[in-house]
């Protein structure tokens, strides 16, 4: 009997982390894209606030809006940088999947460990410095308060559940590779739909009143709206507890669903004779 069942996954986490470091040049272009996007977004919302008759639109003053949008871009950077989608879709299209299945570790666990390594690398190398820079700009330049320590802590928990949610969904979406060749197209569509539903392009308070509570209880809220609203202090402790609970619940549910999907997939592989 192995005493620590997680020990065998440590190698995968470490491997993905080192792999991330080796390819940080590629990631740097993503960061560059984020910077350009953020820059233009600031201008777009400036124009919207300039046209508006009131200083506050749907509960957001302009500096808060910018904080929300910047933090959501930074958050999605480290929470949605999982490996499952690419890994699983490559495994399927190249036929490597049989090879992966022979390893004495769970296939789902193996991919999730890779994701953790990736996200950890991204968080330490890019997110921490960028967050500090952003917060300095907001506190010194815009006079916004620095986030409370407990909000940062809850934010990190929410971010971790976002990793699980994104990665589990990616893992399941990648299984469509058995049915279609245009998997990358699906992935892009999934990303843009999720970004919208997670409140990444527009905060939930801009949505119609009936849609807001619905969105808050769907798994997408955990990918953007919940962590960032916690971080910038828009939720009190009770709201934080509720929203965090919803995200964690979805994370557990979706992880289990992805394990089940994995079992179904393996039986599919067998029946195809792969």
């Amino acid at each position: 009997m192995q005493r620590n069942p997680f020990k065998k996954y440590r190698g995968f986490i470490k491997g993905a982390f080192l792999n991330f470091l080796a390819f940080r040049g590629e990631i740097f272009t993503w960061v560059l894209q984020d910077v350009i996007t953020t820059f233009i977004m600031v201008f777009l919302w400036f124009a919207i606030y300039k046209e508006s008759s009131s200083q506050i639109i749907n509960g957001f003053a302009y500096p808060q809006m910018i904080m929300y949008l910047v933090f959501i871009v930074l958050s999605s950077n480290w929470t949605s940088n999982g490996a499952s989608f690419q890994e699983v879709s490559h495994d399927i299209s190249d036929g490597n999947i049989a090879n992966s299945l022979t390893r004495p570790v769970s296939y789902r666990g193996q991919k999730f460990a890779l994701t953790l390594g990736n996200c950890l690398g991204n968080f330490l190398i890019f997110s921490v410095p960028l967050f500090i820079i952003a917060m300095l700009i907001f506190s010194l330049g815009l006079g916004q308060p620095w986030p409370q320590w407990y909000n940062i802590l809850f934010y990190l928990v929410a971010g971790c559940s976002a990793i699980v949610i994104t990665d589990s969904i990616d893992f399941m979406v990648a299984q469509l590779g058995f049915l279609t060749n245009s998997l990358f197209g699906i992935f892009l569509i999934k990303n843009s739909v999720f970004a919208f539903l997670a409140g990444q392009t527009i905060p939930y308070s801009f949505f119609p009143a009936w849609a807001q509570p619905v969105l808050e209880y769907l798994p997408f809220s955990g990918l953007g709206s919940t962590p960032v609203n916690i971080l910038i202090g828009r939720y009190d402790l009770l709201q934080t507890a509720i929203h965090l609970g919803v995200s964690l619940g979805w994370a557990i549910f979706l992880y289990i669903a992805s394990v089940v999907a994995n079992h179904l997939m393996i039986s599919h592989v067998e029946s195809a004779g792969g």
Partner: protein
Amino acid sequence: MALKSKMIYRADWAIGLLGLVASNIVTFLSLYLSTLPVQSLDGWTFNRIMFMYGFLLIPMGIDHTLTDKLWNYGGGLINQGELDRILMKPLNPLFQMCAEFFQEGGLGEVVLGIVFMSIFGPGLNLDMSFNTVFPIVVGAIFSPLIYFAIKLSTMSIAFYNRRSISIMSGLYNIKEYGKYPASIYHIGNWAGEVVYNVLLFILPFGLIGYLPLAAQMFPGKDIPFLWFSIPGNNYLIMGIIIAVALVHFFGAYLFFKHALKHYNSAGA
């Protein structure tokens, strides 16, 4: 087996259609929700913005239909030795890369663009005289070259380091901001001036829809341009669009030719 492969293609087709519908619903809702709190953005009402979005979909769809394969070359096809196969044939390599694949999904975008224009256009009281519409159409014929040029020059980076999909999609996605009238970025300080002119000349996604339609929707109003402003003359704007499109296209093509010389076979 034959049935199975047919099913695969049908699934692809259905997924393509679903993707087209889903991404356009998302765009529609984003534009709607972000402009809902205000009456208009720099004089552009939601109907005007949607009309411009429909207009933009047409050149984008044409480019998408004809040159979609470039994404695959940026995304790792070069690593698999695909380029060797192409370079062996006595035909222009760029032509071969594009002609390999016809993306029907792009035609869906063109149709959708026409639908959006006919839904949102009639309420706008647009000037439909020949001297307005003709230069707009001519400009729009050259506009796909702009999308193509951005894709081509960023894809060519892959000849140096095998993959360029991230920089490719990074710059291409700036097109999202061309969906709003570019003048909203022109907020009166130097930073706004820079963003505005970048969207007009460097990554000219703001040029394609905003410039011709601003002249059509607001006749007689000057349009900011570099550090000065120009009158909203449709033929002048047509000339600017053609010039920018050609400069970008030939610049990208020269870079493509240059980068191709750098390419070392992967040995596949």
